[in-house]
């Protein structure tokens, strides 16, 4: 086959990823499917802060100190940044096993368990016992066809196995796992502080105004541009939102602080993995609160292994496409399922030249390199693992 230039749209790996995620910005952003509550979160935060900056801040900056809106702005920006990081990043999804790997593991399982006679159901959960100082059981995930690492769990909403799975948070529109737990924690922490801050200064605002012009007059005051809306209504609205947010978010922050100090996940806490007389103690805790906090919040951050922005090798031959069960258009069937580096080149023919090193730079390779040739398409080293 001669070299062909394919003038077709570049297909990136995120388009063929299994699981129930939504991707935006050409694979840079990764979220769960249901995003409605996330939009509500955004609306509440932005709305309340907008009202605060527009009305109370103007008065307080003049009367008390200009540092008040500045500090509020810093808190607000930090909360937004961490929220978006939590929502848009890969929580630590474990890619599904390629057919080769799955078959290999199944063979191993059959070797240990013996084949199941026809007509009988296989044992419900296949466990692999590994010895730590205590015995840790690895569960086999039927969807992903892998043995889940310890602390990983399968999220039924997103249909992915996630490392160090904490929980699926609809407010944030994503799972919370190994890679975005620190962002999630910092988000709820900064949101708590922001809520307390706004709540306090709203009270201060009403108090100050009442001192000056009396409480009743404060209630009747209207801002210039909204003749029909009393200023107090807005303030009261903010106070109400802050009040309800306080109870939930501050409580949640407290709970997660507890979890971080003990190096546990919500999932483990709910299941009671480490509590109870007959259960093992948490082997992941360092025993020291400070050390646990440091590891969870400041520890090394593994990059995403999903390679969402890698380019799927397109091939002209329809025969190949038909043979591929997932309907992806890569040369070799097993490669397409597994998002990761140059998964397509795992098949023999692609290993031409040196083994391409996945470049983990954040720079993206230009799309025009996607020239599919009948020969070995040299993949652009576009792992696009920009931190999201």
């Amino acid at each position, binding site marked *: *086959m001669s070299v062909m230039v394919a003038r077709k749209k570049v297909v990136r790996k995120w388009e063929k990823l299994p699981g129930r995620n939504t991707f935006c910005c050409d694979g840079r952003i990764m979220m769960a499917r249901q995003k409605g509550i996330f939009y509500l979160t955004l609306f509440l935060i932005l709305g309340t802060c907008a009202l605060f900056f527009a009305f109370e801040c103007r008065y307080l900056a003049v009367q008390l100190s200009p540092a008040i809106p500045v500090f509020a702005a810093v808190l607000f920006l930090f909360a937004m*940044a*961490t929220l978006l*990081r939590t929502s848009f990043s890969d929580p630590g999804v*474990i*890619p599904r096993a*390629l*057919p*080769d*790997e799955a*078959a*290999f*593991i199944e063979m191993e399982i059959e070797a240990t368990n013996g084949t199941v006679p026809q007509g009988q159901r296989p044992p419900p959960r296949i466990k692999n016992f*590994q*010895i*730590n100082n205590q015995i*840790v059981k690895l569960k086999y995930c039927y969807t992903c066809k892998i043995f889940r*690492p*310890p602390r990983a769990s399968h999220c039924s909403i997103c249909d992915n196995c996630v490392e*160090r799975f904490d929980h699926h948070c609809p407010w944030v529109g994503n799972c919370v796992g190994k890679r975005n737990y620190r*962002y999630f924690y*910092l988000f709820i922490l900064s949101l708590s502080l922001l809520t307390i801050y706004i709540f306090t200064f709203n009270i201060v605002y009403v108090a100050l105004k009442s001192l000056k012009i009396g409480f009743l007059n404060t209630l009747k005051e209207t801002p210039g541009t909204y003749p029909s809306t009393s200023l107090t209504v807005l303030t009261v609205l903010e106070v109400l939102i802050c009040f309800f947010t306080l109870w939930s978010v501050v409580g949640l922050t407290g709970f997660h602080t507890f979890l971080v100090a003990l190096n546990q996940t919500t999932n483990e806490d709910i299941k009671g993995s480490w509590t109870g007389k007959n259960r093992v103690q948490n*082997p992941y805790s360092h025993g020291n609160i400070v050390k646990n906090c*440091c*590891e969870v*919040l*400041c*520890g*090394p*951050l*593994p*990059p995403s*292994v*999903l*390679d969402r922005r890698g380019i799927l090798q397109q091939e002209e031959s329809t025969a190949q496409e038909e043979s591929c069960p997932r309907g992806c258009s890569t040369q*070799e*069937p*097993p490669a397409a399922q*597994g998002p*990761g*580096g*140059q*998964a397509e080149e*795992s*098949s*023999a*023919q692609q*290993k*031409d*030249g*040196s*083994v391409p*090193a*996945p*470049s*983990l*730079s*954040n720079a993206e390779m230009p799309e025009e390199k996607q020239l599919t040739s009948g020969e070995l398409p040299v993949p652009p080293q576009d792992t696009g*693992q920009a*931190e999201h």
Partner: protein
Amino acid sequence: ATPQVHSLQELRRSASLATKVFVQRDYSDGTTCQFQTKFPPELESRIERQLFEETVKTLNGFYAEAEKIGGSSYLEGCLACATAYFIFLCMETHYEKVLKKISKYIQEQNEKIYAPRGLLLTDPLERGMRVIEISIYEDRCSSGSSSSGSSSSSSGGGGGGAGGR
């Protein structure tokens, strides 16, 4: 384009994928990324045991270095937090730097040790850090001795003809 390219090309042309071996993760030390150094029986005739073990041990060392919890990783974490993680837009994390070292190492090992023996290592990063995949090639000229024990699914999944063009 170095001589290495030719040797791997020749490997592909003359060899077909026989089977794949998957070296699993070793969780005896917790959730850190380590691979089992147990020598797979399928490689018995293809490569010396200590070469294989050395490769896996070096890889384990790299991963341990990437995930090391210490002063510098805390510093990086705190600095990133202080900048609301915007610094990740322009800076590479320590982990990513080590992963680059790892892929260079694997490339080197493939060129020097594994390709001449008809084997190929795949970077675990491409397999979601679950396994080290070792592809075993059979020379078309030599007859038999492909691992008959393994079911056809593995060779089928390997995607048949290497020479597919």
